[in-house]
């Protein structure tokens, strides 16, 4: 996958936990325009080991001079978000991929309802530009913990006016998802990005209200959970790779120079899927991509988020 070197042109502390980074190309060229909901993968060299995290692009899709991402400091970060917060300064150089969109607006939709929780607001920041440019009908529902944690809420209020609704937990304001969905006209699409309970609540409410499945869209990049170390054997490259506790299987394969392609690195796109040829233990599937049947078959694994407990796992790579 092609990557470009970018320089951090500005950093803004948006909330106590969120920083907004403005990135420009090191070679001075323009970025391509992108579609709302796209993300880039940022590669960071942390102590000689390459970490890669996906972040949504938040700026205007036709701004080809700068890309914008926001990073929330994760409490139990494996280093990626902490590194972005503590080690990246204005002038730092990072490497990013070209934009990839796994959370795009369905342009055929008659109306679009965006539901965000916390840092889940970021993909909508760019989607809103697409919605406005196309003159689409939309509503935004944005829930966050307390007033100081409402990243970009003032900007959204002024840009979206009546169409933006805010729910601040500490003030006792609750987002009633079934109520929001039940008042939508036929042909509406709903998009949700936020913590797992919120995403699940939207999926469930939509199902109960009889929404067609292809009108319900969610983005949930799982931060890869850590676990115990394990070893895998590789059939094609004929080697053994150790996956340490603080490393994903994908990162271990990449470090060994045999990494499969990846896009989202969060268990959403399926690009990194590998066939498991032999297994004497158990796979812990953490992705949102494989079907339940595929997961229980033990024949496939998404190495960007999933791990195993085994003494022998032969992968077809």
């Amino acid at each position, binding site marked *: *996958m*092609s990557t470009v070197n970018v320089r951090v042109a500005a950093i803004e502390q948006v909330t106590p936990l969120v920083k907004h980074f403005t990135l420009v190309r090191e070679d001075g060229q323009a970025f*391509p*325009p*992108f*579609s709302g909901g*796209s993300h880039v993968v940022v590669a960071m060299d942390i102590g000689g080991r390459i970490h890669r995290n996906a972040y949504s692009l938040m700026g205007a*899709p*036709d701004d080809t001079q700068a890309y914008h991402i926001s990073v929330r400091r994760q409490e139990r970060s494996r280093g990626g978000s902490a590194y972005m917060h503590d080690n990246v300064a204005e002038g730092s150089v990072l490497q990013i991929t*070209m*934009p*990839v*969109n796994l959370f*795009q607006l*369905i*342009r*055929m939709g008659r109306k679009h309802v965006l539901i965000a929780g916390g840092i889940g607001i970021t993909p909508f920041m760019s989607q809103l530009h*697409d919605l406005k*440019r*196309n003159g689409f009908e939309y509503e935004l529902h944005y829930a966050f913990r307390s007033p100081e944690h409402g990243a970009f809420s003032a900007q959204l209020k002024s840009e979206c006016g009546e169409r933006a609704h805010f729910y601040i937990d500490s003030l006792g304001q609750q987002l009633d998802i079934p109520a929001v969905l039940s008042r939508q006209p036929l042909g509406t699409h709903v998009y949700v990005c936020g913590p797992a309970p919120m995403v699940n609540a939207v999926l469930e409410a939509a199902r109960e209200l009889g929404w067609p499945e*292809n009108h319900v869209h969610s983005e949930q990049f799982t931060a890869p959970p850590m676990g115990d170390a394990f070893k895998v054997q590789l059939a094609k490259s004929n080697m053994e790779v150790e996956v340490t506790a603080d490393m994903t299987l994908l990162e271990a394969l990449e470090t060994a120079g045999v990494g499969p*392609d990846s*896009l989202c690195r969060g268990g959403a*796109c399926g*690009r990194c899927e590998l066939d498991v040829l032999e297994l004497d233990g158990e796979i812990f599937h953490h992705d949102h991509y494989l079907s339940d049947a595929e997961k229980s078959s033990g024949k496939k694994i998404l190495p960007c988020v999933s791990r195993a407990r085994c003494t022998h796992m032969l992968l077809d790579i």
Partner: protein
Amino acid sequence: MGLAFKEETFRDDYTYRNSLDAIRRFPFPFPEDKYMYSVNIEPHVKGKPGSVLEFPLDIDEHYVSECRDKAITLARDPGRYASLPHMMDAQWDVLELIMESLSRDYPEQFKLTKDGNRWTWQNLPLGIENTFTFGDRSSLPMEPFEYVGRQIQGDWVILDQREGTLFADAGIVTSQADWSLAFDVGMSWHQWHAPVPRATEIGVMDRALKFMMNLQLGEPVRRLNWTMTLNPRLDTSPENYPLWGPDRNHITLDNAGDRVHLRVELQTLFRLPRSNGIVFSIRCYLISLNELATYPRWAKRFHRILKDLHPDLLEYKGLTKFHATAVEWLSRYDDGAPLDIGTHPE
């Protein structure tokens, strides 16, 4: 590159011919003596100077006449251009792709100047000039995709990605080969590709779909496909079958060299930036057997390909009726000596 555009026709009196240069750069698709249907997709990277792969979009000596032929087909059947309303972002993406490529790679023929969103486009070979506002449909004489689609060789289809598949939601299709299904706007990937024999069963189409959905911005891909056409006719659409179908019954050893054409399609796929759609372009190159035999190596190779082609593929490509004649015609060039691997002419 100096480009001399030819005056020629792709219908009625069929005056289409290739110059020696055009023959030399013909994208001959057979590196080996045996042909297998495969997806054979590769990155669409820059090829050798002068080749059809030198630039992302190839313009050649047939450009002006081919655009004229396209205009005739569109005038007779306006339905060959269609676009669903939600494709407007993608239409502008394609306009940008085409205008930027042509003005960068053929600066003597095409000029694009930008003043913010105010763009001026000059197409010197076709004598077209417009100043318009990028993103504003009303500033162009027609929809942006039709506007550029009429100024570029080949067929163009824009795919919208949703529901885990791709939908052909816009297209300008005036030179489809006879074996392709009539293009219907709104068709899904699998509906569109249903007729490829055996390919559906063996999952080729599913894999190709998966691959396409993962197509990356700035990393276009291509593949070559081929068939044969009688007379240098671009519009061999199923609906016009009566106009060209009967030609199949009149091929003899005497006229085959002139009338039987190898038709090679250079298919390219680009991810579109604003819409996240994909544009699929099918650029058609035609060469008569006489022209092909300018390079005996090619005639020899083509003889071997054609002689051993699986009957399913003969049927699918619509070659059955004149296959034996073409093979016999080509056999004169085949001494049976081994040929080295590769598509080079000499």
